[in-house]
């Protein structure tokens, strides 16, 4: 039976419902009718409590104490991941760190990577190809327990990539669907008890507060620098995409996060608010302005003369008029924005107008 495919970008509530629905259908596989709510692999309802305990752990500078509590965290494995050495490992923390690393490359909670786990992309490919179920089920049986990685929580206070949680949710819910039936709550509790009795092994290498001794400013600067390099490398890191916005005549510039908008309309209205006292062309909401509108608005620009035009600098260093290309393409190529006086933009507009009129004549 194929697992329900969850769409990207679903909110927590929806996925929760889907999860419960799929659980009900797989009930026959569940040997233990445990109260699944308590498990909370998605970290949904109880995420705050676990998260806060997580935070208070990291605030302790006593690494020994902190690591013990970390050892009791429940983790969720990515489907298809094998970790046969889990049973023998002294510390249960070496679970899904590889996945963490791939999914959240900026996550500070890095540990030593062990085990042959399939990469995230592999896991995702597995889903879409649909050949996952039987293989996953087979693969999952050796797993002694499911594990939830609280760091993966969607609603957590930590900064997490916007698009990734959606994918993660998909993966997580799939995992939960697969793993819950195979894992009794007893297993989890047993493991928790075992973890509590264990000494924190140095192999965990969990982050210790204030170590290495680097000032906060340097840490955050380096973190943001690595974010930038990722964007430049073209990885869909999902982090914010801040670009500078300058406006002719304004005393200072602004920065906007292009990822927070999904259409030109949103961008233009946000910029309007930021630089109040000017207007931007109203582009069609679906991203591609209708030809008629384009011609008209640009003509209006030229006529009125006091209007402003929104332009952007693309990767090649050229100044382009905003609105020509689909939104997704735009945010991938836009490096900075400039609100130009339409009188300066004369060079940009007429070509488009001419092109339109030429095309009109041609058709």
């Amino acid at each position, binding site marked *: 039976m194929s697992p329900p495919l969850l769409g990207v970008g679903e909110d927590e509530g929806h996925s929760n419902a889907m999860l419960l629905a799929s659980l009900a259908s797989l009930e026959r596989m569940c040997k233990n009718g445990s109260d699944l709510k308590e498990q909370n692999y998605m970290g949904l309802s109880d995420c705050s409590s676990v998260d806060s305990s997580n935070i*208070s752990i990291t*605030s*302790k*500078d*006593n*690494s020994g104490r902190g690591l013990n509590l970390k050892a009791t965290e429940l983790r969720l494995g990515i489907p298809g991941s094998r970790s046969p050495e889990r049973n023998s490992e002294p510390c249960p923390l070496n679970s899904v760190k590889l996945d963490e690393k791939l999914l959240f490359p900026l996550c*500070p909670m*890095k*540990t*030593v990577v062990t085990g042959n786990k399939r990469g995230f992309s592999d896991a995702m490919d597995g889903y879409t190809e649909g050949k996952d179920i039987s293989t996953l089920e087979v693969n999952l049986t050796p797993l002694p327990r499911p594990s939830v990685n609280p760091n993966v929580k969607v609603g957590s206070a930590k900064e997490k990539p916007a698009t990734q949680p959606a994918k993660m949710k998909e993966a997580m819910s799939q995992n939960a669907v697969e793993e819950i039936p195979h894992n009794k709550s007893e297993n989890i509790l047993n493991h928790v008890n075992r973890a509590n009795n264990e000494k924190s092994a*140095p192999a965990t*290498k969990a*982050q*210790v*507060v*204030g*170590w*290495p*001794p*680097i*000032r*906060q*400013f*340097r*840490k955050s*600067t*380096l973190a943001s*620098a*690595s974010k*930038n*390099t990722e964007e430049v490398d073209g990885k869909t890191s999902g982090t914010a995409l801040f670009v*500078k916005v300058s406006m002719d005549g304004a*005393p*200072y*510039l*602004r*920065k906007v996060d292009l990822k927070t908008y999904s259409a030109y309309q949103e961008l233009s209205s946000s910029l309007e608010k930021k630089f109040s006292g000017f207007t931007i062309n109203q582009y069609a909401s679906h991203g591609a302005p209708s030809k008629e509108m384009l011609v008209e608005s640009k003509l209006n620009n030229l006529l009125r003369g006091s209007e402003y035009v929104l332009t952007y600098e693309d990767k090649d*260093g050229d100044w382009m008029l905003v609105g020509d290309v689909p939104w997704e393409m735009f945010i991938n190529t836009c490096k900075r924005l400039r609100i130009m006086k339409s009188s300066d933009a004369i060079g940009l507009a007429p070509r488009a107008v001419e092109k339109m009129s030429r095309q009109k004549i041609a058709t």
Partner: protein
Amino acid sequence: MQVVWLSSSLALRDLQAFILHSCSMQMDPKLKKTKDSSSNSANSPDSTHSSFPFPDEVLERVLSLLHSHKDRSSVSLVCKDWYNAERWTRTKLFIGNCYSVSPEIVARRFPRIKSVTLKGKPRFSDFNLVPQYWGADVHSWLVMFAKVYPFLEELRLKRMTLSDESLKFLATSFPGFKALSLLSCDGFSTDGLKAIATHCKNLTELDIQENGIDDFGGGWLSSFSENCSSLEVLNFASLSSDVSFDALEKLVRRCKSLRILKVNKSISLDQLQQLLVHAPQLIELGTGSFQQELTPWQYEDLETAFSNCKNLQALSGLWEATSLHLPVLYAACASLTFLNLSYAALQSGELAKLVAHSPNLRRLWVLDTVGDKGLEAVGSSCPLLEELRVFPADPYELDLHHGVTEAGFLAVSHGCRKLHYVLYFCRQMTNAAVATIVLNCPDFTHFRLCIMNPGEPDYLTNEPMDEAFGAVVKTCTNLRRLAVSGLLTDLTFKYIGKYAKNLETLSVAFAGSSDRGMQCVLQGCPKLRKLEIRDSPFGNAALLSGVEKYETMRSLWMSACNVTMSACRLLAKDMPRLNVEVMRDEGSDDRQADKVYVYRSVAGPRRDAPPFVLSL
């Protein structure tokens, strides 16, 4: 006659003559009678007048040549006259621990202060070990300064808390205020900076470094009045939001005396070029973002601008610098003595080319992305190097293939024999390497080695790193500051106690085996002033072994060690002139003293301690 040892060579000759003369006067048999009649010359004004032929003005004139606060402290202990002369002539106040003294005491003693340096929180607060709202608020000091020192000109704060209101108060209470320097401070926002820019008409220095501040935008820069042309130092490199380039350019243009300019990331390369054109006299420059697509003529203009900066000694910033744009710096590198690349993730080749053009470098800060190869290049290109700091680009990355190793450090030590200050973050080290390094460079005054994995042994022999630090303290007799790391037993501390006779600051983390270690240090290092320890197995016996020592020190910090409340209480009871403060972690045993901060004070226990700080 007490002997005063002074380190200030400027005044030495004057004072030597003065002292010799005073000595000879005191030896005069005619005066001896009067001197003997009063046991202490300080108690009898008549005797002091007769034994000192010079009027107070002369004494004061001589003492005003003294600048070092250590020298001044020594001078003030000679006798009452000298104490008075010193207090009247002191214009610069240095307070290393703001709680060691109170504003009232300071106001009573020093009537004529123009410059104040105040340090607040313990150093480990830089690493989030001190909770927020711990204290070190500057406001009560500012209120006193406004009353007693209305002509205050300079304020330099480190690890203090100050609010926007305090900044506004500062800006409006001191008409002659000139210089503000804030390092690792918190509690304020750019609104406070706005107040400074607006009201301080004679501002010469605004130096904002690495503070935890709320950045509400760069509008503060535009608040400098158009008449302001006195700026000599402007450093806003650590602020994140954009400033008005127009305002900045105009400011730079009219401040002809500007010698230090450090801009933030929002300033682009072509903007930097425009600034440099107006300020070729700069001695220290902090660039903005060093990544931008430039046209060929923009590139050339930038190159020219840099080559026109003939006085450039220090260069920093260089965020996101790549091999594409680094060559514009080559012309300016020849005169550089300080190059701060700690925010530019350079590779070995890029660094090699850069240092090849910088033969006069004395100080170099880099990221460990340059690798051992980059450090080899440093060793061969910078024979005059005195200070090296290597920071980790990815501190939480455990992959051993990144960063630097002992090989890089060795390479630098081979080529740079004058090295005396090092801060080195690495993931592996050996005892043998460190021993060789200090043989090459025996003049270390500051040796801060951070092997990033706590408790990491010598990776070749698997032994503790005791012999490494033993070699350091045995060979480097001038060592003043030491930070240890790696797997260390008590032997390290025995070495330190035995050999580190000039050690003033010691930082310990995840080290030691028993109380004996800390005891050795406390009993052995005569000049120890600051001892900070975390996550080490030192307990009550260790803490109490230093009972007589702590009053000679500025402070002791112990966190996540084995100290209990009872020992802290005992210490507090026995030593009334020590402030013993304890902070407990959430959920910990009532008997455990998780964080202990002990410091000498003439001001008594803190009156502004928050509830989580227990003053014993």
